């Protein structure tokens, strides 16, 4: 009998313990039910500051992160009367972002990831707000920067983001180590002016390979070869690489990139380099970026998407003097503005969120805080008032400073903030010139709306994964594999997508 009483007691205690454990998270099972919060309409009644949640990507663990966040909060409270919540995420943040968006967690402003699914999925799944009407309300700072192009990041009129202030297209470029070039006695001229086409690289590769047989001549991450890359290339992708404009400045016919002469040319060249032993043998599966490999010291050349002063950036990142040969002509098109700042549909008050975002685009102080930290503590203006150049404070360097992001491309407006020492003072102007002098695609401002074609797009993606990198790295014979690649693309519905794209594009052009 005693035993049984003891057993009952024990069981009761266990049950109680289990329930008390439940107490802290009673809502857990119902969270899957989605967003049940109703957005509070209208203003917040004046005094109570709106709580705005900002997500941003950090480059690492900074000791002074909390200090900088506090400074950002103080600044926002003081200037906008808003309470700022900050969520920091590492650069592989797509999954975390997806979780926050799908679980209905509070989030207002976040950077749209260009690596994952692209804006279309965010729109079709209803994760983000249409910024168009919001920009009409609070958009003066954004308009001051972009003018007529403020709403350029749209699909079918749905403005999904405000672009980050940076280059408007990527040109493909070959980044080479200058010291190796010199040792081989190769003169490429000022800014590689003596090189005109991609084929010119063959002789350079041959010379380097002959002189340094153990060195990997061309290598890097598997996506980054002239033939594997799916951005830039002087063409307009119209939202995804299935059906493109091959000569976007003059022609609006949608065609298949993987059947084009230009693609064939690049693929054959890669194959030729691969067979000659210039290309890293495991390129098709390599995950180490060219920068990392170059810094390690055994790589001569890698491919990357470039912009003005790319060689300076490469030099800072690899520790070797570099030159950059831009062989593609950049062209202003809708795909490069995939990266931007968006407002989540979880936002309780999108108007307030927009007000905040708009203010950020105009605030030098806030962009400085995000990128460089607190003035005087983490950076100083070298010649305040006369020059935008900033540098480490006296006695500090990269290792001892408490906060240093140096991720200008992620900032809403990096050129409102200080320009880091080593860069030319006229970087903003140079970038503006670069953007303004660029050729413009006839479809600039158009992106394909593929909401009805998700089955085809899913299948096309998997076909692309299967062939693009093996062929693009030269590790398989394009004469055998390329016809198979295209046949499978068509079997997966390429023609349907191309027809739909053409139809949407024609309608868009007619409405202009």
């Amino acid at each position, binding site marked *: 009998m005693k035993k049984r009483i003891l057993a009952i007691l024990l069981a009761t205690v266990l049950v109680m313990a289990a329930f008390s454990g439940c107490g802290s998270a009673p809502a857990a099972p119902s969270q899957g039910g*989605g967003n049940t919060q109703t957005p509070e309409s209208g203003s917040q009644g004046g005094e109570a500051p709106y709580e705005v949640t900002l997500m941003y990507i950090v480059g690492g663990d900074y000791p002074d992160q909390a200090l900088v966040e506090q400074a950002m909060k103080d600044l926002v409270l003081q200037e906008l009367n808003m309470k700022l919540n900050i969520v920091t995420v590492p650069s592989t943040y797509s999954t975390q972002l997806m979780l926050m968006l799908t679980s209905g967690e509070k989030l207002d402003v976040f950077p749209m990831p260009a690596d*994952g699914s692209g804006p279309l999925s965010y729109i079709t799944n*209803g994760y983000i707000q249409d910024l168009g009407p919001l920009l009409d309300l609070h958009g003066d700072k954004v308009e001051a920067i972009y003018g007529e192009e403020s709403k350029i990041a749209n699909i079918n009129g749905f403005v999904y983001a405000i672009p980050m202030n940076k280059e408007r297209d990527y040109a493909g470029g070959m980044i080479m180590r200058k010291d190796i070039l010199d040792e081989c006695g190769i003169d490429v001229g000022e800014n590689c002016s003596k090189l005109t086409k991609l084929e010119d690289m063959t002789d350079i590769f041959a010379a380097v390979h002959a002189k340094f047989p153990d060195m990997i001549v061309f290598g890097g991450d598997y996506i980054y070869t002239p033939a594997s890359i799916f951005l830039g290339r002087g063409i307009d992708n119209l939202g995804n690489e299935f059906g493109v404009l091959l000569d976007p400045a003059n022609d609006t016919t949608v065609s298949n990139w993987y059947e084009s002469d230009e693609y064939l040319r690049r693929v054959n060249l890669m194959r030729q380099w691969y067979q000659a032993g210039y290309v890293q043998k*495991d390129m098709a599966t390599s995950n180490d970026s060219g920068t990392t490999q170059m810094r390690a010291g055994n790589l001569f050349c890698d491919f990357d998407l470039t912009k003005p002063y790319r060689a300076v950036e490469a030099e800072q990142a690899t520790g070797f003097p570099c030159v950059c040969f831009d062989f593609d002509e950049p062209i202003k098109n809708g795909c490069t503005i995939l990266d931007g700042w968006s407002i989540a549909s979880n936002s309780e008050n999108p108007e307030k969120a927009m007000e905040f975002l708009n203010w950020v685009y105009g605030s030098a102080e806030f962009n400085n805080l995000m990128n460089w930290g607190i003035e005087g503590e983490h950076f100083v203006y070298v010649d305040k008032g006369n020059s935008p150049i900033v540098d480490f404070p006296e006695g500090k360097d990269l290792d001892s400073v408490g906060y240093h992001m140096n991720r200008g491309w992620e900032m809403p407006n990096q050129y409102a903030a200080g320009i880091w020492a080593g860069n030319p003072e006229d970087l903003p102007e140079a970038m503006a010139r670069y953007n303004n002098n660029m050729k413009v695609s006839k479809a600039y401002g158009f992106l394909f709306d593929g909401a009805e074609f998700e089955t085809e797009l899913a*299948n096309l*993606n998997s076909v692309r994964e299967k062939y693009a990198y093996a062929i693009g790295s030269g590790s398989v014979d394009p004469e055998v594999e390329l016809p198979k690649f295209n046949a499978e693309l068509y079997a997966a519905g390429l023609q349907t997508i191309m027809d739909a794209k053409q139809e949407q594009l024609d309608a868009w052009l007619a409405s202009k």
Partner: protein
Amino acid sequence: MKIQQAESQARPVRRVSHRRGRSRYLFKKWAPAYLLMLPGLIYFFINNYIPMTGIVVAFKKYKVSTGIYGSPWNGLKNFEYLFATNDAFTITRNTLCYNLAFILVNMALGVLFAIFITEIKNKYAKKVYQSAVLFPFLISIIIVSYIVFGFLSVDNGMINKSILSPLGLEGVAWYTEKKYWPFILVFVNSWKEVGYSCLIYIAGITGIDDAFYEAAKIDGAGKLRQIWSITLPCLLPTIITIVLLNVGRVFYSNFGLFYQVPMNSGSLFDVTNTIDTYVYRSLMKIGNIGMASAAGFYQSIVGFFLVLFSNTVVRRISPDNALF
């Protein structure tokens, strides 16, 4: 049960009161046990049963703003992409065949290793071998993929550089040659997983009564005879349980093994693409929750019926060993 029935037939009048009294007695007797079970049941209900209603998302055009239950119905459209291309056959074949191979190989090797290890007399050596077999199971698949890469890398891999090239043989481009991969994958999987099943079988063997072996020895049975006639038959229930559990997951594949170990190499997709990797690759860029759930739904339904089916088969052959 039979006795009880006979009893109740013989004395129908007393049946009711007797039953009631008995069930009350049974309840009283087992109440603490039920109470002990309750937290587990509640946990199961909350964690495993309530989320099941989320299955409807596979049939919906999911929008986050309206939630799972508010989104419009979409019929079977979410399932289309799984069967739209020829890949449907490839991925189903790969998933099924690899898993069947894994089940067989792991079972055979697991039992073999378990017998070997239990036969070792030296206590320390036994511990060492047991840990050595288990160790790979504890390694993250990412690390495993780099260990494999260390062997198979074209430029610097151990096989190409230290084995084939000193023999004067041409190096193999492992990550673009399809024909080797079915063996590589089965090998890597056994190397990694066999320790775990081995552990369970060791526990099973240790549970066998020593009296059997003593009796066998007296009758003059040798080691092999003992293994064949005592160890294996006694281990059979354990083996069947583990195989049944694995059969239920035959439509799921170990994502890390099929994605990380071949380094996501496109040329190998014909022999490395399984349902999980296919879904991941297709939807990574599209982010459609409905379509992803459709794939999960398809896998669980097929897995469910496979368990029912194989359990029925087992029940036909040897009813004592069936799970239910």
